[in-house]
Structure formats: structure tokens, C-alpha cells
């Protein structure tokens, strides 16, 4: 029973990994936006970046 469950689980894991790769999924953090106006191309400064204001590391050791 346990072996069958593991076999089923393994197939799901393999299938998920294959599906994620095929669909081009990613684990990186980002924000998806809709309907960004075409004017951004002419006026890039009008676009409000989601990740602005990031606290940068400025130290070193």
C-alpha cells in the first residue's frame, strides 16, 4: 500500500516537474501587470516600477 502510494506520489512529482519546465514556470519573484499603456515606450519615466525603493546592500564585510 505504502509502495503504491509512493509510486503514485513519485509520478505526480515527476509530472509536476516536467509540466513546470514545459510551461516555463519560474520560482523567481516578480509581479505580473496587465494593460501597461503604450505611452511607456515613448515616456519610460512615466512607468512606476513595483520594485523601486529597494534597500540596497552597501557594506561588504
Amino acid at each position, binding site marked *: *500500500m*505504502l*509502495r503504491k502510494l*509512493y*509510486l503514485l*506520489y*513519485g509520478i505526480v*512529482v*515527476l509530472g*509536476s*516537474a*516536467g509540466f*513546470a*519546465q*514545459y*510551461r*516555463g*514556470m*519560474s*520560482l*523567481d*519573484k*516578480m*509581479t*505580473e*501587470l*496587465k*494593460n*501597461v*499603456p*503604450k505611452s*511607456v*515606450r515613448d515616456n*519610460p*519615466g512615466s*512607468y512606476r*516600477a*513595483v*520594485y*523601486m525603493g*529597494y534597500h*540596497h*546592500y*552597501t*557594506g*561588504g*564585510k
Partner: protein
Amino acid sequence: MSAGTPPLPGPPKPQAKALNCPNCGAAITLRSFQQAVTVVCDSCHSILDAKDPNLQILQKFEVAVGESRPFIPLGTRGKMRGVDYEVIGYQRRSITVEEVRYSWQEYTLFNPFKGFRYLTEYQGHWNDVVVCKQLPVVNPNLTSSTPATAVYLGENYRHFQTAEAYTKFVLGEFPWQVRVGEHATATDYVCPPRVLSSEKAGNEVSWSLGEYMYGVDVWKAFNLPGSPPEAIGVYENQPSPVSANVKAVWAAFGTFVALLVALMVFFDVTARKELVFHSTYEVISGESKAEASFVTDIFELKGRTSNVEVTTSANVRNNWIYLNYALINQDTGQAWDFGREVSFYSGYDSDGSWSEGSDHDSVVVPSVPPGHYYLRIEPETAPVHPPIYYTVDVKRDVPVSMFFLLAFLALLVPAVLISFRALAFERSRWSESDHPPIKLSQTEDDN
């Protein structure tokens, strides 16, 4: 057979024989006919010679106050291994280990055509026991660290425990000269779900083979009311619910890992990894943010919906650059907004030279449909810095090894957990034996 046909002649149906106890006169029923050697009077607890027509009294014993009664009453009939048996005898026996007494029950079962078999019970763990048909071969332990083994019918049994077993209480009929207070050296060898037991009394050694049974199966076999006593702990020959699966699970794990590697190679070979954009830019010290943001040329992403890798390489030395990226579909307005930092620091101190960070960074944008895209880039860096040159590469459809690493871990974790569970079960089993597993705290105490 028609209604008028007389029954066919056959062996007469066995009938129980009724007698009276010579001590107290109470009725005694002999259920095993001529097979029993001794019978115990339930009223006065006299052990009688069943072979003697006058039922000679062999022993009288006192019953302790609160003596437990058998779970299966004498005379109960049930089906064991497809054969009808009747419970004709009951005894309670015990061993004492490290001043702790452990008691168990033994039931004698009888079928007039098949003979005797036995049922034992200890803390809710049951065994179906038969006398061995041939003599097992015992291999004594050559070193103290190696337990002795016994071979019976091609199966290897490991020595579990040897102890002096005392008979404390008897009831019903027995195919041997039973006595309360008699003792024998009992040795158990296990090969779950079986246990091979030897009992040595004087010069006589008898061997029996037991097979683990669950209480519910015993209750079902004898159609007993209520539910069986709950099993406590792990018994010596109790089959592990997981041990049998460990090898199979690891074999499956190996197969899955091989398939995973094959899958990874397949995607690595078939991925387009197409460089669709490449450009180098410079960040000049003192530029304002508004002036810094710009858009790239339009590039085309072809093929099915797939990922996009954006790689940034910069000549940062004890410096950093942060890039607000937006990958924008020119036609639909769909965009992916993300920020990436490239920083690299190095130096030298009392510990020696050190470095941290990297001069390049990669990010994978998920599930990007085909179309025409451009990047909006807004770089940030320290207010005062030497000129920083950075290169942006955009690749279509790249393999992501992290999925396969996660899949590997997802496959590994249950296999490890199952193995640990099996190990814990075996440790629990052998902790009650003459060969307990070494405990870490014990070894520390020894030192």
C-alpha cells in the same frame, strides 16, 4: 440428496465426555476425548489425570485473588486457517526480567481430526502456534555481538530472548502433564511475522512455530463479542507496517531519480535557449533617476508559451547596481516587473582575503507568451561611483534545474521518512530483547 434417502454411513460425530471431579464432584467435560493428558477442574482447581478412568488428582493449586479469566472462554469454537477448532485449555505463564514480571496467555485449541494448535496473547498481540514438524538448526552466537540464529524450513530466525517461563494458572485440558509452578527455559527466535520457540524442561526440548495475528482476526475467527484488547507496544514478531516497503520504496526512488535525470537531459537538449536580445549600457555618476530609465529595442519571443531568462552582467567592484526591470509586451500591454541587484565586494582583513556577491545575475520570467517585447530598465546605484557598464542578455526557453532539484528532494523526503519509521519500529522491537539497540546516552554513560 432427496428427502427420503437415508444418510450415508460415516464416522460417528465426536461427543464430549462428561465426568465428575473426584475432589469436589463438579461436572467436568472432556472435549478432547482420549487426547488430553491432564484436565483441570474449574471449581476446585484440581489438576486431574485425564488418562486415568478415576481422574486421579495430580495437583491442587490456589487461585490468586483477581486472577484474570481467559479472553476466549473454554468451549468456544472458531475457525483457524479454515479448520474448526475448539478452545479446550487455558494457561497463564510469566517470565521475570530485571525484577519485572511479564505474563501472557496460552490457549489450547483442538480439532478431533487435525489435533492441537495454540493461541498466545501478550498485551493485545496474538500468535497462532503449531508444534514444529522438524527440528530447527540452531547456530549459536560466535561472538557476543552477534545473536544466535536458527534455521527452520529455509528461513533464518534471529535470537530474541531466553528466559525462564513459569506456569501460574491453568484451566481446561492439556495434551501434556501440566502443573502450576512448573518452569521451562523458553527461547524465542524471530523472523517477523513468525517466531520460533523452544522450551527446555529437563532433557526435553520442544519447538513450536508461531505466526503473528491481529486481535481483530482472532475475534473474527471465534466470533467473540466486543472488541479485542488494544495492542500495546511492538511485539517480538509483529510485522512492521513499513519495513516491507522500505526496499521497494528505495527501488522506486532510484527509478524516479533516473527518470528525473532523463527528463532533465531531455529538456536541456530540447530547450531553445535562444538569445533574443543583447546590449550593453553605461550608468554615469550623477544622473537623476528620471533620466536613467529607458526602454530597449523591440525583440521577438517565438514558439510556445515558455520562460525568458534575463541576465545582467556588470563591472561592479566594491559597488552595486540595482535595476528595475519591466518586460513589456508591446501588443497586449502585459508586463512582468522585477528588480535585480548586481553587487560585488572584496577585501582583505586579519582572516585573509574575502569576497561576496557576484558580477552577474540571472532571473527567469515565467510563462511568457510569444510576441513582441521590450524591456524598460531603470538603473540605480551609489550617488558617487566610477562608470558602471552592464550587459543585458535575454534568452528564450531556458531549462530551470531548480524544478528537478525540488523534485529530487520531494522524492527523497518520503523515502527517508519511511526508512526512519521502519528503523524506529525495529528499535522498539529489539529494545525488549536480549540484544537491545545501543542507545547514544548509554554509550556516553559508558565513557
